[in-house]
């Protein structure tokens, strides 16, 4: 990335003498941008287009046709899967709302001692991949799980928490409610107290005030969270697979491709439906929220007025929070018990406790753990490099198409992991990697690339935020003192962004480490398997569940430590910046 405007010392270089039309002079950032665009085109856009194309192709003749979609809707299993996926997603939104709404309301409206607990509660579920907790949930809430055994013994009835689709809904809503909690809380905090006071002044109070003023104003945040939950659940493969619920769309796509074969069009049709629904939901939420930026906090004003709880309200509030906390932590508790238990079946608690599962796990999964560290490390590194480059190009240069680069990287949000996996299999099966002698689709590097693409949107946001906080004047000051663009980026911009970049790296790493949807399609041999796939394999047999749970605990610890680390980095960075601002 050298400045092209400065003549090279010692006369015109070879590149300078070539005709401009042949080699249009591109600035450093433009070349980097071009490379990124080509990379994203090859590993995101092309595979997805390939999937869409195949879905509309006659498997025999290769002609374009709508017949595959006709076949899809003519098959009762697929119709049922479609309805089930929709039902599970919608119900997950409902239950996630039931969990998140009271928490958001209590913490933003009242002086609540447990606010810190509730805030961390927002992160606890996210540090465990939902499919990891699924088996543990089965043992606690299943037909013969702890809760139902106790209910049957004492009250003579059971509740089908985990039967079929119910199980998926329960696991997903417990896992994804933080999306609603975080967005809704932010929205509630962004409402200026005068909004509420004006309504009180005109005679409104209590539930009516909440329904007519407060909640509508928090609506954009709620919708943003609810749409995320809907899409995530709609696209998720791991949880239904582990709960053995196969009559949903994502598992059907996976099963068709893995059992019938890569040429079966149904997997592609389902993929198109998954992508279409993701895009449709995002678009619908965009339409609903257009022109509704309700953040109304005034300078110096601080969100809604908080009031003290009365004793009765306090009991209610703490009770509700404790209950929700217990529910949210149940997968973690269950997983821990499972990993430490000898035999746990038809009993409220394991029969005995042992560390044997950890020994078994360690003997069998070192390869999984090593693979995970390698894949997730590579993916996260790639994410922050690409993220930083895109952030710089978008925010600091006027390069043509820079916004497009941002959209391109963000588009990965709308691509379910299972679709990306199918796209890679289809697109890269025929491409052999030089010197490796393997098709690109089954080379281990492709797993790292898939993870990189999947996590890029999040890393990009972190990098964008980090660069936005670096004042342009700081760069201009460096340039004014004689530093070139390249040196300014290296010595001023990157160091100042470092906190944000590191946080982005850690988050990408931690979440990539437990991703299952895309990797499950791409793993070609046990030796190449990451940890998430290892857990999946363990959980397939009852005898392997203990060790699988132990490996799950390893995953939780990795993600938990990662989340904690990124929080510490962000906090330290914030402190550093405010300190330097004070002096």
């Amino acid at each position, binding site marked *: 990335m050298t400045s092209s405007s400065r003549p090279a010392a010692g006369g015109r270089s070879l590149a300078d003498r070539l005709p401009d039309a042949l080699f249009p002079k591109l600035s450093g950032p433009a070349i980097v941008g071009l490379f990124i665009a080509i990379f994203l085109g090859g590993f995101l856009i092309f595979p997805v287009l390939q999937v869409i194309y195949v879905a509309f192709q006659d498997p025999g003749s290769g002609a374009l046709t709508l017949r595959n979609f006709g076949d899809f809707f003519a098959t009762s299993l697929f119709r049922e899967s479609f309805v089930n996926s929709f039902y599970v997603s919608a119900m997950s939104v409902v239950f996630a709302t039931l969990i998140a709404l009271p928490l958001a309301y209590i913490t933003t409206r009242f002086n609540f001692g447990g606010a810190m607990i509730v805030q961390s509660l927002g992160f606890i579920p996210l540090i465990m991949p939902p499919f990891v907790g699924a088996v543990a949930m089965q043992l606690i809430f299943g037909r013969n799980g702890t809760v139902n055994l106790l209910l049957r013994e004492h009250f003579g009835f059971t509740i089908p928490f985990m039967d079929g689709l119910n199980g998926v809904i329960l696991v997903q809503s417990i896992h994804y409610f933080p999306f609603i909690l975080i967005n809704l809380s932010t929205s509630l905090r962004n409402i*200026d107290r*005068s*909004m509420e*006071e*004006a*309504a*009180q*002044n*005109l*005679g*409104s*109070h209590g539930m*009516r005030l909440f329904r*007519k*003023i407060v909640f*509508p*104003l928090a*609506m954009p945040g709620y919708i943003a969270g609810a749409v995320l939950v809907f899409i995530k659940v709609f696209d998720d493969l791991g949880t239904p697979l582990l709960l053995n619920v196969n009559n949903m769309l994502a598992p059907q796509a996976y099963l068709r491709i893995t059992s019938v074969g890569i040429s079966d069009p149904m997997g592609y049709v389902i993929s198109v439906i998954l992508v279409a629904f993701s895009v449709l939901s995002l678009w619908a939420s965009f339409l609903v929220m257009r*022109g*509704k930026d*309700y953040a*109304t906090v*005034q300078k110096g*004003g601080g969100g809604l*007025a908080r009031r003290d709880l009365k004793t009765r309200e306090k009991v209610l509030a703490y009770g509700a929070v404790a209950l929700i906390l217990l529910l949210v932590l149940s997968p973690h508790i269950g997983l821990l018990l499972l990993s430490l238990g000898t035999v746990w079946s038809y009993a409220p608690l394991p029969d005995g406790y042992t560390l044997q599962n950890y020994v078994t796990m360690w003997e069998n999964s070192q390869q999984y753990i090593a693979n995970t560290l390698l894949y997730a490390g590579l993916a996260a590194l790639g994410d922050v490099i690409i993220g930083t480059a895109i952030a710089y190009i978008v925010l600091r240069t006027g390069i043509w198409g820079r916004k497009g680069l941002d959209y391109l990287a963000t588009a990965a949000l709308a691509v379910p992991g299972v679709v990306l996996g199918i796209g890679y299999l289809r697109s890269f099966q025929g491409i052999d990697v030089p010197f490796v002698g393997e098709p690109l689709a089954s080379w281990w590097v492709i797993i790292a690339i898939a993870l990189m693409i999947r996590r890029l949107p999040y890393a990009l946001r972190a990098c964008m935020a980090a660069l936005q906080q670096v004042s342009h004047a700081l760069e201009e000051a460096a340039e004014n003192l004689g530093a070139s663009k390249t040196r300014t980026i290296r010595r001023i911009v990157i160091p100042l962004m470092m906190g944000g970049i590191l946080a982005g790296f850690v988050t990408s790493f931690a979440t990539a480490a437990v991703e299952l949807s895309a990797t499950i399609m791409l793993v070609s041999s046990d030796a190449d398997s990451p940890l998430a796939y290892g857990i999946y394999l363990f959980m397939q047999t009852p005898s392997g569940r203990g060790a699988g749970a132990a490996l799950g605990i390893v995953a939780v610890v990795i993600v938990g430590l990662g989340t904690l680390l990124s929080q510490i980095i962000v906090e330290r960075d914030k402190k550093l910046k405010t300190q330097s601002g004070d002096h």
Partner: protein
Amino acid sequence: MTTEMVGIEIEDLHLAFGKTKVLTGVNLTIEPGEFFAFLGPSGSGKSTLLRSIAGFGPQPEGHIRIGGKDVVDLPPWKRNVGMVFQSYALWPHLSVRENVAFGLKERKMPSSEIGPRVAAALDLVGLKHLAERMPNQLSGGQQQRIALARTVVVEPKVLLLDEPLSNLDASLRVQMRRELLALQRKLGLTTIFVTHDQEEANTTSDRMAVLDGGVIQQIGTPQTLYDTPENLFVASFLGTANILEGKVERDGGDIRFVAGTGDKLLLSSEADGTGAIVLRPQNIAITDRPDGDTLSGRILHREFLGSQIRYIVQAAGTEMVVDQGHKAGEAGYLPETDVHLKVNTQSAVWIPQ
């Protein structure tokens, strides 16, 4: 839209945020139909006092009576006092019409009545044609008027305005304050106006209270407060004041003020002991010739302000501000000139220590 005019009585009101006292011993009577201003610097407690009347913030000790009824224990939604917020607080998810209709719906008014009432209120502020707009499509001045319409449509007993003009640009501010006053006179609504801008308070209010440190410093008409401030805070907060500290000497029938430097001024009103006198810049004249009752000084600095020239004069041990009217062609005095100051002692206010 006329309601029965009610007065407001505030008796021995105290309020603290934790250990910080924000209002101390506030006693105040506002007459029915009066346009009353709370004036003070930021942090003086003026907004807190207004919010206490509306029922917002922590509950104060003492009494607030509106139309003779103590409201201090009532929640905001039972007080029926109309408040216009500094930020206007128009709800962005509701149209102008829905914003204005809100309070009427809360009062369970039949919709056949709500329609005409909303129309009349919008008509009152001249914005009937904007009924279907959303708040973010309105200019600052329009938002201000809608906020006003939303408040008066419910026919509150009193109208509270919290720095209503501070978010408008300067030219609009002058126009809006006239409109506010005209509207208040038309509705005959007892009104309290909070501001930190003395010009706003002076031009609109019948009477005002100057606050500082949570304590009412003085209550009176704008002119009274300017001409006869009771303490140095009021003197220096309202307009520019020259304050000379010293003591009073009696010499037969003459009452003389003696500054710390020994400079003397003959006072025309009763005074005693030690304290300070307040001299307004326009009540001091610059002259070349000394007489028995002038202060000698030296011009440090001059600012040409158009209709007048403001001089900073070193005299009586301080830097005094002296304004002299300007007429075309007059050169005035130059800096570094030795001059004498003739004080109009009738306007001098003695503030005992």
